[in-house]
């Protein structure tokens, strides 16, 4: 019976693009829209970018950490690298794009609405959100994204090491779980700020 530690299914590397051209085009388009939103100071566009980016970021973290991650870790090695080769290149581009949209549009939006001023009723929630965002950034950039990149390089090798992939995937899923929990805190803070308006 096969399981997560079963490597008898002769692991071999998978050919795939770590960075896809179509994905880069989508990232470039998002960056242009974000720059237009920031420079135009259009509140509606900034709301779209901040809320849309934040929702994407949160859903991805919660889904990866609590739904897909445990399923992925229970798969055979071959199934795991097959899913990872499709999932991780998308995550590599999607996550930083969603995070940048959320933070940059959110900062401009908060400043235009006066929420980043110390006298604002929302200020303490905004400051709390900075610290949660810092936890998210450090976990995502210090643990999740490096693991993401390292797994992709490993599974591209002709003979990927099941132990290395398993260990990195566990780290990836653990980081996504920490992010999912911090994201729930951000959700509570942001909805509190919205209810003050």
């Amino acid at each position, binding site marked *: 019976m096969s399981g997560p530690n079963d490597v008898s299914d002769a*692991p071999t590397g998978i050919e795939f693009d770590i*960075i896809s051209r179509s994905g880069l085009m989508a990232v470039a388009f998002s*960056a242009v829209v*974000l*720059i237009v939103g*920031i*420079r135009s*100071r259009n509140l509606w566009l900034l709301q779209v970018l901040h809320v849309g980016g934040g929702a994407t970021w949160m859903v991805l973290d919660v889904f990866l950490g609590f739904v897909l991650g445990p399923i992925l870790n229970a798969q055979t090695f071959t199934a795991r690298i097959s899913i990872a080769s499709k999932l991780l290149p998308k995550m590599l581009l999607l996550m*930083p794009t969603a995070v*940048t949209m959320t*933070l*940059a*549009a959110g*900062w*401009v939006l908060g*400043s*235009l609405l006066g929420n*980043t001023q*110390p006298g604002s009723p929302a200020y303490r929630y905004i*400051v709390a959100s*900075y*610290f949660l965002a*810092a936890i998210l*950034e*450090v976990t995502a*950039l*210090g*643990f999740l*994204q*490096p*693991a993401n*990149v*390292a797994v992709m*390089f*490993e599974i591209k*090798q*002709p*003979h*990927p*090491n*099941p132990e*290395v992939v398993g260990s*990195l995937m566990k780290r990836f899923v653990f980081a996504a779980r920490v992010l999912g929990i911090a994201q729930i805190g951000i959700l509570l803070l942001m909805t509190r700020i919205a209810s003050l308006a």
Partner: protein
Amino acid sequence: MDRTVKSFTTVGVAGLVAAVISGIYVVTHPADRGSIYVQLLLALLAQIVLMFNLRSAETLDKPRRHRFNLVSGIALVGYTVRTGIIALAFFTVGIRGGRMAFLALDLALYAMTVPTIIGFTAARTASIAPSEPAEGRQ
């Protein structure tokens, strides 16, 4: 060797924490209030960590160094664009002068530290030539 590379990643995360806290300190303290020494100390700490990591990259063996350079180079391009957009957001809402200079410094440190963390993590798995079978790994 693997453990040594892992420690470079850990040190890099410490530098990232310093750069992020420094950035939060600057945005939460108006120009006339925050202590310049706290900002300087955090930015200096992040800078020292970055220098240490860049020197550490030179000690990697050839396959690991090749992967480190490849991955951190691509990541550097991405994170430079990203921090540029964030800097534009700060500039657009009227942050100027010393605060903007500190934020730009923090963002630059952030844009250089993250690629080293990603590069070291990717380099950890590059210990042998691609043609060598998996059994030969440590």
